[in-house]
């Protein structure tokens, strides 16, 4: 039952071309960033490219992935409420939890496809044109990347229980901004600023805890501990936010679609 719903959600996303657009977007922009390097490499005959190019590519990939995840979360069931499919689903002998988990699983598949495409682009570039460095911790990095998407997805799902999708997405972006605010306050000297800064950092989706793209591609033997720390941190946030989204969905009443 859950997998039927998940596959239907994936089909729906495919037909809305949502994931395709993000993959193409990521592909185009990353091509634009890599293109000058390619040209330089062709001109100079040096086919080995430094970490900077890969870094840029993954930064763009993360940006598109986060926005995609956020939108998927914010429209998780809102879209179905709007187009009237939710009522028909709810009349089936499914619990609300199964329904939401099924839909989320569909979104997870979509994000995995996106991440797969990101890696595939990178690998193709690596094999055909350049020797990008592929560090040992690359798979772990991908897990962290996925976990990053998941927390934005869960945040989108949570805020969309309270707000419409557009406002929900805005709220998540505002929340992500808290990390920046935390940094500003932490850099100030008065004690109360530091306390406030720590508070903000506690509440924010602090990306400093994660393993940065830079660290990954510059370290020779990447230390794995910060990676696990980051993954655990985001996993906890994801579980918390998604559970809250499920509880709110479970308690929600729906209005019939008006023609």
């Amino acid at each position, binding site marked *: *039952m859950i997998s*039927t*719903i998940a596959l*239907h959600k994936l*089909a*729906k996303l495919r*037909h809305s071309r949502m994931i395709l657009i993000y993959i193409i977007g990521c592909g185009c922009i990353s091509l634009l960033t890599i293109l000058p390097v390619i040209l330089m490499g062709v001109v100079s005959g040096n086919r080995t490219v430094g970490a900077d190019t890969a870094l840029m590519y993954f930064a763009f990939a993360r940006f598109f992935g986060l926005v995609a995840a956020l939108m998927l979360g914010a429209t998780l069931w809102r879209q179905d409420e709007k*187009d*009237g*499919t939710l*009522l*028909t*689903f*709810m*009349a*089936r*002998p*499914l*619990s*609300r939890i*199964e329904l939401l988990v099924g839909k989320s699983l569909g979104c997870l598949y979509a994000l995995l496809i996106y991440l797969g495409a990101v890696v595939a682009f990178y690998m193709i570039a690596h094999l055909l044109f350049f020797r990008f460095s592929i560090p040992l911790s690359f798979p772990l990095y991908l897990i962290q990347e996925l976990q990053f998407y998941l927390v934005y997805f869960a945040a989108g799902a949570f805020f969309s229980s309270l707000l419409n999708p557009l406002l929900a997405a805005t709220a998540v972006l505002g929340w992500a901004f808290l990390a920046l605010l935390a940094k500003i306050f932490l850099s100030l000297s008065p004690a109360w600023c530091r306390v406030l800064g720590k508070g903000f950092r506690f509440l924010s989706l602090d990306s400093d805890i994660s393993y940065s793209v830079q660290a990954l591609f510059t370290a020779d033997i990447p230390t794995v501990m910060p990676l696990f720390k980051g993954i655990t941190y985001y996993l906890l946030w994801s579980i918390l936010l998604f559970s809250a989204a499920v509880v709110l969905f479970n308690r929600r*009443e*729906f209005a*019939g*679609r*008006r*023609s």
Partner: protein
Amino acid sequence: MTPALRFDNLAKTYRERGAGKRALNGISFAVEAGEIVGFLGPNGAGKTTAMHVLMDILFPTSGSAEIIGLDSRDPESRQNVGFLPEVFAFDGFLTGMRFLKLFGSLSGRNLDLVAAHIPELLAFLDMPDAANVRIKNYSKGMTQKIGLAQALIGDPQILILDEPTSGMDPIAKARIKQLFIKLRSEGKTVFLSTHILSDVEDIADRVAIINQGELLAYDRVSSLLAANKRGFKIVFAGGDAGLPSALVGCAISNDSQGRTEVSCPDPKSRDFALQTILQHGGDIISLKTLGGSLQSQFLRLMHQEGLSDD
């Protein structure tokens, strides 16, 4: 036996700014298994609200709703139910076939059985070619039909249908009436809200009539109609000069087209009047039972007798 559906003092208030809207005000009745029950009431009476509580789309403010003895809040209660929402819509990118397969599998029925059932179902609904057409390209009536097919695909014991024939053509309406009768003969329960009272009168075993969230009547169609009978009206033309005076016990009036109307208070005077008219060479045009239609009973319950045409 456990009733198929049961409303127990069900009240529902929509939360809104201020007082909130009381859509259901403690309705109680049970739908027995194997019956066709019409759920009637004017616009805004609370029919859709009650059905949505059954489907756990809305939650009761107080009281409860049950399906085969299980509370509506329990997903298991919907195990054997087909539901058609008032305004049916679904993802337009699916073809009729894929849509019905999806809901067939969600109802837990064997997929081979579902796949075999689909062409038959679509042919019955007079849209055999719709299987490979996307829902977004369906007409209004076709969309409604595929919605009904969705409710039927799992072969459920109980059907809860909110205005099932709205937007459908007369052929489809007639077929669906037959379908309901067939389903009843298989022991299935059909609970449908509708504004087409004549259909309900023809096929339903019972009707529930609500208005402004109150249950006004819940009874067998036959008893409801019997309670409201107000005699008979015979219309005839011709007849000899002695006829009017021979019709004792009946009120007589002439209409503009040279026909005569006779009102009789009971079956005995009706039979007497009919015999008398025939004996005097009168030509009977029509015989009507006054207040004998569900329509007139409905209007009476709504205090709108003036709108009744009999």
